């Protein structure tokens, strides 16, 4: 059944996404309705729990939430830079013709991707960092988070590079570009477009994963919320600000990812 878009009644345009674009008011109305439905569901759940809310004691500790939130930003930002560097380096190493480098890169990526981050943090901090004499737990925390995210980023970068058609590389060779020049002028400019959206998504994961550093007593957002929880015996009051705090960091990044995906869709 095919109804021309323009002739369809208003109620139909309100509920269905049209093929030739949906009016903004339909989007807004439906987004608000979905939000209300989800809020109503949460409200119902909270009512069912029969929980007695007591925000007073948690409010006393508000500074702890802010400090933890800032530490989470700091750790995530540091890990973001380091992991990008590790990721690009590993992607290049895995393309290397020096076999030991190629295999070392592969083993690193597979080890990281096949074990839980929680286990990696414990082993890295209490075994490797201890043996290496790294006493500062924040340095160790950023290092393990970077190693973890770096493995995933290297896969993103690798797929970005490998997506470039073989014919382009042959053309580059044909016009006499060296390997370094090929990377500089042919591969990277195109790969960056491919890589940027999934990379931003990876940073969202990185921010969320940083919460696991709480197990080695790094006083980031999650540990501080847990401490407030323990100090006030509250339970749920600390978790709601915790969720909101992470959303505040990750939602803008997620929305930006969406925009990047849109912008680069037809770029190559």
């Amino acid at each position, binding site marked *: 059944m095919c109804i021309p878009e323009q002739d369809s009644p208003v109620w139909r345009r309100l509920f269905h996404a049209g093929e030739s674009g949906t009016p903004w008011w339909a989007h807004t109305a439906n987004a608000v309705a979905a939000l209300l439905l989800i809020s109503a569901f949460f409200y119902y759940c909270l009512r069912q729990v029969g929980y007695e809310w007591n925000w007073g004691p948690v409010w006393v500790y508000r500074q702890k939430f802010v400090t933890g939130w800032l530490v989470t930003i700091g750790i995530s930002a540091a890990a973001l830079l380091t992991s990008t560097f590790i990721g690009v380096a590993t992607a290049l190493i895995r393309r290397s013709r020096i076999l030991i480098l190629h295999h070392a890169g592969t083993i690193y990526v597979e080890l990281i991707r096949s074990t839980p981050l929680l286990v990696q943090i414990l082993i890295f901090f209490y075994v490797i960092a201890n043996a290496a004499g790294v006493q500062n737990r924040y340095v160790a925390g950023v290092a393990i988070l970077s190693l973890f995210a770096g493995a995933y980023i290297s896969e993103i970068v690798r797929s970005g590079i490998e997506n470039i058609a073989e014919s382009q590389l042959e053309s580059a060779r044909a016009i006499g570009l060296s390997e370094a020049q090929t990377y500089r002028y042919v591969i990277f400019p195109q790969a960056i477009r491919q890589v940027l959206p999934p990379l931003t998504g990876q940073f969202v994961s990185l921010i969320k994963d940083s919460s696991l550093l709480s197990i080695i*007593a790094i006083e980031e957002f999650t540990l501080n919320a*847990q*401490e407030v929880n*323990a100090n006030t*015996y*509250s*339970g749920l009051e600390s978790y709601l600000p915790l969720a909101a705090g992470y959303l505040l960091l990750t939602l803008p990044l997620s929305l930006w990812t969406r925009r990047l995906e849109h912008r680069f869709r037809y770029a190559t």
Partner: protein
Amino acid sequence: MIAISGCGNREERPLLVGMELAYPPFEMSDESGRPAGVSVDLAHALGRHLQQDVRIENIPFDGLIPALKTGRIDLIISSMTATEERALSVDFSDPYLRTGLAILAGKGRNVAGIEALNRPERTVAVKIGTTSHTYATEHLTQANVLVLNKESACVLEVIQGKADAFLYDQLSTYRNWNRHRNETEALLVPFQEEAWAVAIRKGNDSLRLTVNDFLAAFRKEGGFDRLTEAHLAEMKQAFDELGYPFVF
């Protein structure tokens, strides 16, 4: 959710006892993974007293009071100290065990006592939500306090020299020192005395009074001596040798 709120006959339902099974020999899992220990035996004795089945719910320590408040469990028997702060959130039975906070110090760290730890160059490990965590937050304001989720991690921090000391109760401190005699030393004289009690949802006075009756009767018929013999014989002997009064 509907099932939880809607179920009617409370007598049919087992008594839900919350504890963290990470605190041997009080709360732990045996080789086959079943709950075991002093508190588990105590919970089952309480169940016999109430003529009700008992189900042990394994919940992290800092999640026990929230679980009690939200009705996921009926009471807490988890080596929990009855403190004033906790009493704002839950009601406590009469105390059933007396103990105190002790210090597990790294060997050669020259920890003379709790005052020696309140310095900027000192690092103290505590387990989250425990009374030693509260103590460190309130009294060790100069020291660097590490808050960890697991007792084992706290001990590891001391052994590796990342922390000068780990603050915990006497029995655990003794047990940890016993296992790591080469790396640690124990200061077992308590710097803060405390008593453990059963926690019950606020206002549930009938259950609280029944638990009190049970504890008194259990003590009278020698139940706590049997628990000591079954789980704590070695520790009691060590405490007797050191001249400390035992916990029950």
